[in-house]
């Protein structure tokens, strides 16, 4: 190993991105390009009774309009096997196949014109009448008909998690905590809207699509259109953020391809920001109810954790709330149950930290209540309950590090000596509070074979390729490091090539698995080339390495030498020239361990927050966040830290800002814009410190990587909510926490005497 893994290498894509020369999917120059605009349904439920496109067709520049009356029929494609490596439609429903409207914003027409403004204008001229029927768009409206699905999360997970006997556990408890929580829906809102450009050449389709997985796009569009995957090529290098919105393949991608076929021209569709709220899924509105039982010395005896949420008419989708929440603590009894309400929304989808970011919030706020009730320090309470084995299976963790996360995080934050009394610190008009939470995120092994190709030239430079894409995580930088390390050549001598479905297969990086799975394939390809050349050298009588044990040969800077004897050896170049080889090549592949691997699989961390709450106005400012994480091996501390800091700000945003609210009169989102859907701006951001604790992991691929994409968010909102309690003495059990929740419970507020009373949310 050349040591380039683990270095804080600056982003390889930095120069392209700071000069504006990195091209995203809406920036491909094509002759004859036309622009598409989707018309979304105005009502949330009903039928289209008439649709008149005459006026729109006559508008200047219009090239064609598709509605359910002339849209070709597509195949039905199930949600599974989805991101395991097959087609991955975001919902089983495909629009414009008939006159039924299931949710507001559902595409009912697509207008194509020469110019963007022409398409936008013509879309307003399409006349549609509806026979509207009553809609259900909130949990409250559908609660009476809630049901228990068999599976959730697109069929990936069971809807229930149980171990031991919760009733026995509650009977053995000295203290019970019973806490209901409510969570507004969230929308991902990457700054680049979902954008597709479709070009047909005969029966060959090329797509430029802002997605998390070009292979998933290829396979999904192929399945829907009944085309062979070999007829579809997806070319996407740079994607402007994703966060789950671009993991599944949503209908507009295929609609764009069909529109391009219809008008016989290349077509581009960039979703307007407003349509981003009805086109690419969301984190569903949900309620969670948690009950904890514990002994007086703080040992958990039982956890009952129920969730109810709203899904679409077609799919049983809920984020899994009890993966991590059932695994963090050695509690003998656990019961987790998901219930669903069918409503008139599109199918929800993965949103950063899917499920776990909310489930862990609930658990960690309840743990804070327990710590307060028992008068035990919150970290100490957790230390009394954490476990070296996965409590659901009894298997040891593949690697751990949680104790070190508490220790290092607490030290960095200055937790020691904290006064546990709420409202114990005040600076001027600001009530100061601190809080912490445990973080965990699953390591998901649901991908299939990952492949990469390494191609080394006789001059010692290499091209390493795989069909992944860069949506900001730093994969192109990190994979260059991994390839250089595996080949034993310099960083500058490697070009990492990606963003083309014609390259060897890589899965969609979701669930924080990108670094792990792609690096495993890249590493295996690179070391396969290295091993080929070492084998050749030791069997070559003209090589200084002749007769050496291949395992005793190391490579650095393109030179193979005996380990411990840098003078004996030769370069790849000299060996290859002697053998008249212009290049060497290998495909590397990697399969995840079996799903029943005898290991507990989580990444661990600890989150800390300091907040200031205005004693009169209830305004909350987060002053400082510290996150300590143990993500296995850190391939590049610069990219890893950046991912984690970004995730922690998502946690802050989840706690205090983000919520999409339904206008039930119309069944439409009431705040579908970046002006009304609040996300943090620079001045909202606190100081953020990240501690990285490297732990060795021999289960998660050849490099021992666990992942950093989502754990930064998990627990962060709970640390903030717990800090808000510590500052004010009042527990808000609703996200996002807003000024209006606190106003009545502040020192100078009207009901200050009631501070500490619990809200009634049942």
């Amino acid at each position, binding site marked *: 190993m050349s040591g380039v893994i683990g270095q804080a290498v*600056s*982003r390889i*894509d*930095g*120069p*392209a*991105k*700071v*000069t*504006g*020369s*990195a*091209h*995203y999917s*809406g*920036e491909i*120059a094509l002759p004859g390009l036309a622009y598409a605009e989707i018309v979304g349904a105005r009502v949330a439920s009903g039928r289209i009774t008439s649709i008149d496109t005459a006026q729109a067709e006559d508008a200047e520049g219009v090239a064609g309009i598709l509605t359910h009356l002339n849209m070709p029929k597509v195949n039905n494609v199930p949600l599974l096997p989805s991101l395991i490596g097959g087609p991955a439609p975001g919902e089983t429903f495909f629009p414009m196949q008939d006159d039924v409207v299931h949710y507001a914003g559902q595409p009912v027409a697509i207008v194509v014109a020469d*110019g*963007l*403004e022409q398409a936008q204008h013509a879309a307003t001229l399409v006349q549609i009448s509806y026979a509207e029927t009553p809609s259900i768009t909130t949990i409250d409206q559908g609660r009476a008909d809630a049901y228990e699905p068999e599976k959730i999360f697109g069929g990936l997970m069971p809807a229930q998690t149980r171990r031991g006997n919760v009733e026995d556990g509650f009977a053995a408890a000295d203290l019970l905590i019973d806490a209901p929580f409510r969570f507004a829906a969230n929308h991902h*809102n*990457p*700054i*680049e*809207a979902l954008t597709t450009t479709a070009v047909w050449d005969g029966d060959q389709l090329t797509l430029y699509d802002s997605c998390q997985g070009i292979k998933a796009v290829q396979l999904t569009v192929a399945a829907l259109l009944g085309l062979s995957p070999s007829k579809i090529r997806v070319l996407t290098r*740079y*994607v*402007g*953020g*994703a*966060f789950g919105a671009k993991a599944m393949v949503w209908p507009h991608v295929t609609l764009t391809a069909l529109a391009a076929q219809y008008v016989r021209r290349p077509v581009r569709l*960039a979703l*307007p*920001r*407003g349509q981003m709220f009805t086109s690419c899924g969301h984190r569903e509105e949900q309620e969670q109810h948690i009950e904890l039982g514990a002994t007086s010395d703080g040992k958990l005896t039982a956890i009952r954790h129920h969730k109810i949420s709203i899904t679409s008419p077609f799919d049983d989708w809920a984020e899994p709330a009890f993966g991590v929440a059932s695994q963090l603590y050695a509690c003998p009894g656990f019961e987790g149950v998901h219930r669903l309400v069918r409503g008139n929304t599109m199918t929800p989808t993965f949103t950063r930290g899917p499920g776990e970011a909310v489930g862990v919030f609930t658990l960690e706020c309840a743990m804070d209540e327990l710590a307060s009730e028992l008068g035990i320090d919150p970290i100490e309470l957790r230390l009394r309950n954490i476990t070296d084995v996965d409590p659901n299976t009894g298997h040891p963790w593949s690697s751990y590090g949680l104790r070190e996360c508490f220790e290092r995080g607490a030290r960095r934050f200055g937790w020691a000596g904290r006064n546990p009394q709420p409202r114990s610190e005040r600076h001027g008009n600001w009530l100061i509070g601190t809080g912490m939470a445990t973080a965990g995120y699953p390591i998901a092994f649901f991908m299939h074979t990952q492949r990469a190709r390494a191609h080394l030239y006789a001059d010692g430079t290499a091209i390493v390729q795989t069909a992944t894409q*860069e*949506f*900001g*995580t*730093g994969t192109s930088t990190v994979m260059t490091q991994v390839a250089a390390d595996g080949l034993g050549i310099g960083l500058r001598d490697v070009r990492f090539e990606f963003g083309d479905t014609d390259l060897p297969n890589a899965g969609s990086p979701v669930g924080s698995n990108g670094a792990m799975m792609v690096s495993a394939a890249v590493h295996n390809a690179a070391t396969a080339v290295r091993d080929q050349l070492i084998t050749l050298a030791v069997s070559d009588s003209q090589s200084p390495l002749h007769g050496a044990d291949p395992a005793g040969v190391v490579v650095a800077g393109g030179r193979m030498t005996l380990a411990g004897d840098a003078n004996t050896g030769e370069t790849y170049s000299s060996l290859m020239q002697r053998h008249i080889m212009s290049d060497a090549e290998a495909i590397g592949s990697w399969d995840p361990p079996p799903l029943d691997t005898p290991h507990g699989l989580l990444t661990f961390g600890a989150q800390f927050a300091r907040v200031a709450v205005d004693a009169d106005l209830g305004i909350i400012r987060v002053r400082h966040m510290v996150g300590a994480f143990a993500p296995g091996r850190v391939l590049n501390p*610069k*990219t890893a830290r*950046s*991912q984690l*800091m*970004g*995730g*922690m*700000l998502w946690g802050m945003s989840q706690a205090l800002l983000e919520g999409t609210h339904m206008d039930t009169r119309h069944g439409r989102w009431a705040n579908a*814009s*970046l*002006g009304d859907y609040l*996300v943090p*701006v*620079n*001045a*909202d*951001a606190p*100081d*953020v410190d990240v501690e990285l604790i490297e732990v060795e992991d021999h289960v998660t691929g050849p490099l021992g990587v666990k992942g950093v994409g989502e754990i930064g968010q998990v627990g962060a909102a709970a640390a903030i909510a717990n800090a808000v309690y510590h500052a004010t003495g009042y527990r808000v059990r609703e996200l996002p926490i807003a000024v209006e929740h606190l106003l009545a419970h502040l020192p100078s507020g009207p009901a200050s005497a009631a501070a500490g009373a619990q809200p009634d949310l049942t």
Partner: protein
Amino acid sequence: MQITMTVNGVSHTRDVEARLLLIHFLRDELRLTGSHWGCDTSNCGACVVWLDETPVKSCTVLAAMADGRRVRTVEDLARGGRLDPVQQGFAECHGLQCGFCTPGMMMTARWLLDHHPDPSVAEIREALSGQLCRCTGYENIVRSVRWASEHEAAQPAGGDGGTGRQAGER
């Protein structure tokens, strides 16, 4: 209607629709795709360019309103093959992930440093708060601007240096 504007020092005359926004004119007409579009409500700031000497959200400006004026975009930050210190700072300090917000952030940052060469962290945060980044958590963006400020202080710009230029000047 016919309009003429100087973009990054080059004069362009085009026939455009009155309703065409400056951001789309730059991206689709002139193929200067470094400036991005991200919302319809002038909230995200991915589209920030300079109109004459001032950063503007180019999605709130009609192309026709830029008639006779100078526009400067991210493509004009680097000169003579040398990155502007702001660009170097963002690349060096990991002030970006997906990079979609980056050109807009840098155009505002360049303006800030031209007028306040040594901004505090709070001043940087405030100046860049009209623009959204969904990826980085902002911390590294602040560091990137500080990096540029410190490097400019250490190496005062020469003739083609980083500060005090007029939009569209070569």
